[in-house]
């Protein structure tokens, strides 16, 4: 009896699956590198939402190296003439692919959803090519965060979160004197560059940041402010433990979590790590923006590639609409630890760090201190970013002087342009 029930159920399920396929409201194949933890869960939300609309979701996860492997696959796919429907692709990369004529626009969806009015202008600009939306942002990450262990700070006698680099240095010295690791850091080029850009923002301010790291102004790159930034980076280097090389960022976060290290400078995805370990913000860990009144923007987005066939095109549009829906933006970002890309989503369910992030974002838009992240591929083409990463990581791993670094950086940027 039970067996027959089971069989009937299985039959019914398979029929349902078939039927679902038949009345699918569009098909999407999504290439991404969110393969674990909160990220995978966040993508799962999108998949569920899409399937709830009757669509068919083909998942193509390719993890590793912040999307390097995925980018390799993407090129092969475009070359072969069967690109995925949507790709986790962001920043100037969107423009590069658009210039190749490899993208589809979703302008009609954007107009209906009135995207222009709900996205920060700086972000909207990145999502568009020739005035039309070719990508949809799912979130906003803030890069310039300091995460701290209250336990470690207490042990070292540091009372407040630093607001200037001088204060930071003083606090770090105290931590070291207390026998703790001052700065938890992982020696991977993108992490080195993350430190670098927060330092540049803190030392030079948003205008300087924009000139040097976005517009790539030669004079700015060769300026004394840049030298001062490298000096501070050198200082940070001295606060890092000897075994940092190659360490993954989440291991560094773990060091702060366990109170072995005082600070970590990392984007707000680190918060997800704390939350996943059951830590409470404000109690078990502290969050504060890095010195300087700016907001370094990092945003993940899905870019729509040139697929053909009605089924795929339809799926593409449905996906674009779903990504930008307030409901999805909320669910997704609760899972991932970032804040919604839409500025009009209420943040009642979010934690204090996220709320703070949101306030700072609005203020930054107001004051024009919102800058795109260089380290996270929001500011400059990948070729130039590569030169930055090479130089910064070289500086971080050698005893190169700040003067030298400045000159070499400017030369390298010139070469890549």
């Amino acid at each position, binding site marked *: 009896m039970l067996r027959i029930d089971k069989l009937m159920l299985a039959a019914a399920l398979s029929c349902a699956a078939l039927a679902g396929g038949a009345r699918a409201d569009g098909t999407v194949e999504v290439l991404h590198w969110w393969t674990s933890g909160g990220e995978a869960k966040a993508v799962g939300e999108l998949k569920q939402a899409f399937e709830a609309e009757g669509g068919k979701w083909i998942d193509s996860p390719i993890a590793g190296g912040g999307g390097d492997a995925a980018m390799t696959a993407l090129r092969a796919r475009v070359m072969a003439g069967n690109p995925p429907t949507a790709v986790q692709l962001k920043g100037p990369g969107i423009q590069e692919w658009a210039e190749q004529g490899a993208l589809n626009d979703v302008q009609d969806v954007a107009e209906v959803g009135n995207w222009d009015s709900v996205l920060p202008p700086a972000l909207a600009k990145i999502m568009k090519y020739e005035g039309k939306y070719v990508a949809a942002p799912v979130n906003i990450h803030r890069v310039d965060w300091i995460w701290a262990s209250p336990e470690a700070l207490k042990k070292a006698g540091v009372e407040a979160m630093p607001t200037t680099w001088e204060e930071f240095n003083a606090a770090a010295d105290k931590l070291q004197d207390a026998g703790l690791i001052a700065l938890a850091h992982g020696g*991977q080029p993108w992490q080195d560059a993350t430190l670098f850009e927060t330092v540049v923002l803190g030392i030079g301010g948003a205008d300087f940041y924009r000139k040097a790291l976005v517009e790539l102004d030669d004079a700015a790159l060769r300026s004394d402010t840049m030298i001062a930034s490298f000096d501070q980076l050198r200082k940070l280097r001295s606060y890092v433990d000897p075994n940092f*090389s190659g360490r993954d960022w989440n291991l560094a976060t773990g060091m702060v979590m366990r109170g072995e290290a005082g600070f970590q400078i990392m984007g707000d995805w680190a918060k997800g790590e704390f939350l996943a370990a059951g830590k409470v913000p404000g109690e078990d860990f502290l969050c504060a923006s890095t010195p300087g009144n700016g907001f370094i923007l990092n945003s993940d987005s899905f870019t729509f590639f040139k697929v053909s066939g009605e089924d795929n095109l339809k799926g593409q549009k449905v996906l674009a609409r779903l990504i930008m829906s307030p409901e999805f933006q909320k669910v997704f970002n609760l899972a991932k630890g970032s804040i919604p890309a839409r500025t009009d989503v209420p943040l009642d369910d979010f934690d204090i760090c996220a709320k703070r992030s949101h306030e700072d974002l609005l203020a930054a838009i107001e004051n024009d201190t919102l800058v795109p992240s260089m380290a996270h591929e929001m500011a400059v083409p*990948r070729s130039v970013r590569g030169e930055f990463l090479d130089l910064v990581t070289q500086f971080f791993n050698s005893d190169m002087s700040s003067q030298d670094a400045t000159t070499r950086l400017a030369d390298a940027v010139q070469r*890549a342009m």
Partner: protein
Amino acid sequence: MQSGSRLSARLERRLPQLVVSPLFAVSLFFVYGFILWTAYISFTKSGVMPNYTFDGLAQYQRLWNTPRWYVAIRNLFVFTALFISISLAIGILLAVLLDQRVRIEGVIRTIYLYPMALSFIVTGTVWKWILNPGLGIERLVRQAGFENFTFDWLVNPDYAIYTVVMAAVWQSSGYAMALFLAGLRSVDDEVLKAAAIDGAGPWRTYTGIVLPMLRPVFLSTVIILAHLAIKSFDLVIALTGGGPGYATDMPATFMYAFAFQRSELGVAAASATMMLMTVVAIIVPYLYSELRKTAG
């Protein structure tokens, strides 16, 4: 009927060529066609995707002006030289030792050989742990009471390339051992007996007689190891990711980074072309000697 059989006889005579011609066509297209394509791309403005606008030698200028490329080349030479010589030395040593009537030879041989079966995608993480000063050997030795012991090559830009050599040797030296052991086993027993009668001890027997006889094995082992060295990619990516900084970059990783991470296909193609020229320089003399030997 007769003309039919004559036709089939003619076909039969041409059959070997017919059988080989698909192989030839495949290599021509998939190897040489693609090489030509790459060479062409190196003379174009290609960035994110191939772009067929001719751009002269600009990509080569860019390549040779990139400090990282010099690091990659220097690493290739350091790595290849050390990797080949150490693998050969260990391979020969172990083959000779295993040849001394070791009862559990089968087990030991399998242990020596198994790393070849595993890709660095599989073993990369564990190598990272072992070599990491805070997790692996250094910590272990320090816990054992040698407080001042330092083994931080993995995180030291000047020495990191040697850890890559260590892991590469780990993977391939067993294979070299197998090649040499096979070579030793194909040496006529009577020659070894003659050496024993002639009064040669083990050292003299191997250095004076047996190893010189293994010259061909030597050559093919070097070629196989060289090809592994030139292609080494997974290893670097898994172990150091090219770091610290780009201290352990190699031409293969350099090319990959420029083509797929940085959207500089042109530079990548230029570096690939340089790499292929290096391969030609190594392989052609080998092929020449190979062909001359069998032509007779």
